[in-house]
């Protein structure tokens, strides 16, 4: 039987989490959870509604070296935020591809992170920007790199008594962008995407819908500035990083070929 707990304060939330070691389902924007429960995909029955905590965990601010996005900030708020627009236009571009206008007004950044979809639009961009997440529990905070947060398909580096409180994005002078391939602009789920950030001979790469979980393309990054690489070379290199799946939106083979072409075009562009 489904039960929904409704903590009114952070203190109440941690009392619930510390009482029993249980894999609670956190209800934030609800844009993934509500359809998943309806379709029977989501089987967990113990929910915690975070809507009473929304005010405290919403907003964007900066410290000396980072822009910090609180976990329950919606993508609509993210898109309007001046700091994020100024420092991370590639992330703004990616966040505009999430669902449509209605979904963006409800869906939260931490929801996109913990849902851990290989096709999540905001994650490749956040990975190339070297984002970190703050995990909060009654014992305090720990900060973990987003690239270390994913361990397998929907398998996350987070304990049952922790919630995500912040997403920390370090400011940098890297050039970053995001390319998406899909069937239409709004309300579509990405077939494949590529995010990158580079400066001189350093590059960070990440691809969407290319692996069981969002990840950086470390093997490709390492060899990216070698001279005279061919499309065939990238085919071999990329195989170390990704293995896209077949699903209703696309075949794995198609995704792989498109991604290889995107990476190779970028390589040619940056060799100039």
């Amino acid at each position: 039987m489904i039960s929904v707990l409704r903590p009114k304060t952070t203190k109440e939330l941690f009392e619930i989490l510390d009482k029993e070691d249980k894999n609670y389902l956190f209800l934030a924007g609800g844009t993934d959870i509500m359809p998943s429960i309806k379709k029977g995909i989501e089987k967990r029955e113990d929910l915690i509604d975070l809507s009473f905590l929304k005010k405290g965990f919403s907003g964007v601010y900066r410290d000396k070296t980072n822009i910090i996005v609180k976990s329950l900030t919606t993508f609509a708020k993210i898109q309007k935020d001046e700091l994020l627009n100024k420092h991370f236009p590639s992330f703004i571009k990616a966040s505009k591809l999430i669902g449509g206008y209605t979904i963006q007004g409800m869906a939260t950044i931490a929801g996109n992170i913990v849902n851990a979809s290989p096709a999540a639009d905001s994650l490749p961009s956040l990975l190339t920007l070297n984002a970190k997440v703050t995990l909060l529990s009654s014992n305090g905070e720990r900060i973990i790199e987003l690239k270390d947060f994913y361990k397998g398909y929907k398998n996350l580096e987070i304990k049952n008594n922790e919630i995500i409180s912040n997403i920390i994005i370090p400011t940098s002078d890297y050039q970053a962008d995001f390319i998406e391939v899909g069937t239409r602009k709004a309300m579509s789920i990405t077939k494949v995407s590529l995010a990158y950030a580079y400066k001189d001979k350093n590059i960070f790469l990440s691809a969407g819908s290319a692996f069981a979980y969002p990840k950086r393309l470390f093997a490709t990054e390492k060899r990216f500035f070698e001279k005279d690489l061919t499309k065939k070379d990238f085919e071999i290199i990329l195989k170390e990083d990704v293995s896209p799946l077949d699903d209703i939106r696309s075949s794995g083979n198609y995704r792989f070929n498109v991604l290889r072409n995107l990476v190779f075009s970028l390589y040619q562009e940056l060799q100039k």
Partner: protein
Amino acid sequence: MNKIKVSFKVNNKDYEIETTPLRRLLDILREDLKLMGTKEGCGEGECGACSVLIDGELSLACITPATQLEGKEILTIEGISDKDGEPSYIQKAFIDKGAVQCGFCTPGFVMATHKYIKDGGSNDETKIKEALSGNFCRCTGYAKIVDGVKEAIVRHNDKEAK
């Protein structure tokens, strides 16, 4: 499922209901409050037919659970009609520009348009399309809906100028 009590406003009227926490706002509106203007299209947050405003934000009633309604102010298509149930200027502009065919998606589009104009939206076609990007129409091909929105903006500006 455990039952909860939630208090909220719909179209400026106070309600307190007892229901299960994951019951959809869409069902509360249609079944309990008998406000049938909000439609169920896909039922999973894809099509925008059930769009309403919650605390001023365009939201989907089919994926909004009762537990998240505490203290919220909800505006539905019934709430934007002028007094005595006269269609609002947006609805009239849609009718005049042929933006309504079967009409099932129309309440959602009208709510999205209301939100866009309320936020000071301009006549820029790209911006209008972005604002309507969460709403699907299977009849019109969208061109006439965009015309309807542009017409509504003109009428809104005329009204403001007076």
